[in-house]
């Protein structure tokens, strides 16, 4: 295990230095001065390079291994996007430069908004939200503002129990009450229950399509019709948009508003937990409420428009996570229509292929067909005290990152796999072979080996209970 920075600190010359070509006496009044000593480490550039390089090697990453983390869409990130995003003419730009000096950035943003409209069937997009959950909040604030404007008091949002946890917590933050809608056993929306819940208080229904079991909502048109007849807004959680890009548009299904996780569907690297980008798209009637500023094409050049009196305001400082926006723009331009459609098809093919190889021996609550991902329940096959988490840890020994486990919450001992389109058949075959060895062989013959896995990682199984009971959060 790599030492900590404070443990490798010495009295050496630190890595960075600064000079000053101006001599000025700095007199800071004593009551404003820092009196405490600053305990920063002293480490040379060479040692710091080793330290952080060694740390990086303690990560499994998409660039080193198959990363079938369900719901997170760990597809290959084209390298050319990185190269473009590092261009100084994109990243050495101050947000308050005159519009005429940032036409490149504005063009990229304007055109990406248009591409997202074409893909989603929405009429307008804002690129301001910084991540998917931030997009959810933005969308919900837009919905709240809409009802305020038409003078309807609607205080609740319906969210299925299979949804990501961000949905209810975003709704709460936007000032709504959340009603949880129980799913049917195969993860579909229970239409009868939905009918019971719909009343004049319901502002919106938030749906993830395909749902978190990777299955398309078969009654979707009925659901959107029911909602609209009730004056309720349909919110599309774009977490799984990658399953339907180029095949069908959320806008055509009757959704009024949605967010897209650019980093997932349009392949910007996930950065160990961000940055992401969560653009929000709306149908025309919700456009007045989008965050400011909007980007306008006034024929000769692009300009900002802050004059939107019904706008919810700003959701983030400045205009959005531009490098992520740029990478997604590049991705769409690289693939084009045919590449985007093929990616969707191959992602769905890969997921169904894996599912086909596993479905005969393992419970699949969502049924034997899926879209881009699927969820298995290991409950009926777990033996000798082995749990799903143990199976996940054992996969690490074979060099794979583990699929998502224990989500969605509606499936017991769930394991959720999303291979994405950029994995080869060989990769999938090998992974399935290993997975089967673990659950059908090792679980019977060597269950202890699974229960104390992983064995080959830089650290062995870590104790999360100790960490939470007696938190050590800094050196």
């Amino acid at each position, binding site marked *: 295990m790599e030492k900590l920075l404070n443990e490798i600190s010495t009295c050496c010359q*630190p890595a960075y230095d*600064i000079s000053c070509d101006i001599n000025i006496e700095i007199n800071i009044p004593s009551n404003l001065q820092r009196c405490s000593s600053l305990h920063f480490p002293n480490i040379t550039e060479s040692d710091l390079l080793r330290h952080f390089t060694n740390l990086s090697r303690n990560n499994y990453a998409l660039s080193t291994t198959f990363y079938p983390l369900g719901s997170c869409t760990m597809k290959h990130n084209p390298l050319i996007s990185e190269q473009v995003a590092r261009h100084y003419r994109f990243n050495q730009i101050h947000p308050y430069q005159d519009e005429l000096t940032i036409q490149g950035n504005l063009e990229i943003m304007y055109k990406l908004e248009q591409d997202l409209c074409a893909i989603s069937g929405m009429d307008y997009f804002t690129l301001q939200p910084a991540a998917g959950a*931030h997009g959810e909040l933005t969308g919900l604030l837009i919905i709240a503002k809409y009802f305020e404007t038409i003078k309807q008091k609607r205080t609740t949002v319906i969210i299925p129990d299979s949804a990501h946890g961000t949905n209810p917590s975003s709704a709460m933050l936007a000032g709504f009450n959340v009603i949880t809608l129980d799913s049917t056993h195969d993860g579909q929306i229970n239409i009868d229950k939905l009918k019971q819940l719909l009343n004049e208080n319901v502002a919106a229904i938030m749906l993830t399509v395909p749902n978190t079991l990777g299955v398309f909502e078969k009654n979707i048109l009925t659901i959107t019709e029911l909602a609209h007849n009730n004056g309720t807004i349909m919110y599309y959680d774009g977490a799984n948009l990658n399953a339907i890009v180029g095949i069908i548009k959320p806008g055509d299904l009757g959704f009024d508003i949605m967010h897209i996780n650019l980093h997932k569907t349009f392949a910007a690297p996930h950065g160990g937990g961000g940055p992401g980008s969560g653009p929000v798209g709306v149908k025309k009637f919700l456009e007045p409420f989008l965050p400011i500023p909007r980007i306008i094409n006034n024929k000769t050049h692009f300009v900002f428009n802050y004059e939107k009196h019904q706008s919810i305001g700003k959701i983030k400082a400045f205009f959005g996570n531009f490098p992520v926006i740029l990478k997604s723009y590049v991705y769409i331009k690289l693939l084009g229509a045919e590449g985007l459609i093929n990616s969707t098809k191959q992602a769905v093919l890969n997921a169904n292929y894996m599912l*086909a190889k596993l479905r005969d021996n393992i419970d699949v609550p969502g049924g034997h067909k899926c879209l881009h991902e699927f969820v298995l329940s290991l409950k009926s096959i777990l033996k000798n005290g082995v749990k799903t988490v143990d199976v996940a840890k054992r996969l690490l020994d074979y060099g794979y990152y583990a699929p998502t486990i224990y989500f969605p919450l509606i499936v017991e001992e769930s394991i959720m796999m999303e291979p994405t389109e950029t994995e080869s058949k060989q990769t999938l075959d090998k992974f399935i072979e290993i997975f089967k060895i673990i659950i059908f062989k090792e679980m019977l013959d060597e269950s202890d080996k699974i229960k104390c896995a992983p064995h080959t990682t830089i650290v062995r199984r870590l104790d999360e209970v100790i960490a939470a009971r007696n*938190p050590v959060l800094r050196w």
Partner: protein
Amino acid sequence: MDYTSKNKTEQNDMLKTIGINCIKDLFVNIPRNLVLNKLNICHGNTEQEILTHLHNVAKKNKILISFRGAGIYDHYIPALVKEIVNRSEFRTSYTPYQAEASQGTLQAIFEYQSLICALTDLDVSNASLYDGATAVVEAILMSIRYKKTKKILISEALNPEYIKVIITYFKHLEVDLIFLETTNGIIDNNTLLNKLDDNTTAVVIQSPNYFGLIENMKSLCYWTKKFNSLFIAVVNPLSLGVFCTPGEYNADIAVGENQGLGSPMSFGGTTCGFIVTKKSLAWRLPGRIVGQTKDIKGERGFVLTMQSREQHIRRVNATSNICTNASLNALASCVFLSGWGSKGFKKLAEVNIAKAKYTFKQIKSLNGFSSKFGDQTFFNEFVIKTTKDINKINKILLYNNILGPLNLSNANANAKLKNCMLFCVTEQRTKSEIDSLIEILKTI
């Protein structure tokens, strides 16, 4: 371009295994009449074509010598920061759900938390928040959950972008947002005392504030505590090499923007917010926290911890809705903070002050230019009042490839800042760049 890998034979094998004849059959559950015939997106491009296109687009952006800040700053980024952040092992991994296979990211965040604590003299930090503006929002949310009241006093000298975001977030939550007026650019004790009462949830003060001025945080915090309210300090982390820390003046929560710590300006995003607090408030923190633990052999390791605060477990009762945040930018900040040493970091802050002060002295001695707020202490930004036309000044500067000061004339509804402009000078500006700025201003 297409990044998928299968040939026809493989594809047919796979379809056979699935038990279908063609790819179309994979989408049978989708309403047939709505399936698209055509996707209205251009044809794909090769890497080379993309590069040519993007270079042409990039040319439409102008790179300028920046004397503008107001929340986003042109600071030097050491080569090591770029080297590490570009490592694909960091860049292409995700939220460290599988701790044993994510020790790189987890330990880096633990180091980051430690460095932020050392910098601010507070106890508990985490990685990370989207940006400085949403970091302030999260701090206010924490205070509301802790105090169970909803009255927030906010300095009007808080960055206006942040104020706008705060208003967006709290409009629907029936939170009483009361703005404190500045006196000569800073918050006066009496102004605060006039508004403070036992119902006050928290007081939000930025220092250096929007005008670059250093607030008297010690006394503002002291009075806030007299009313048992929480004190939320919004600070520029670089300034803490020199100025009094949130821990020293006993702030409850400190937040801010990390862009100056190793992230490029990037048009104002991607940046990264930081938050740090006292031990007693640790369980109220939003988002991911990394903690140290042991593996089954007793070896040290790191995990995501205190997760019962979070949306994936708590859902509607979570401390925030944050999931994906700005981890890679927090890593940049970690590498940035690791390499200066204590003395070097202090010197970095001093160079900012020295260069800004030099520029300030030169400008205010020019005809038609004066200091708006006298000789108060500032970090790397200051406000100048002028008799000249600010738009014209900036036009002329732009002609000389200089991004001039921000025009503040309309920044305050009461016209308090008429004919005022906000300059920023970081360690990036050389003496000769500053001198050319002065020469141009002389001629206007």
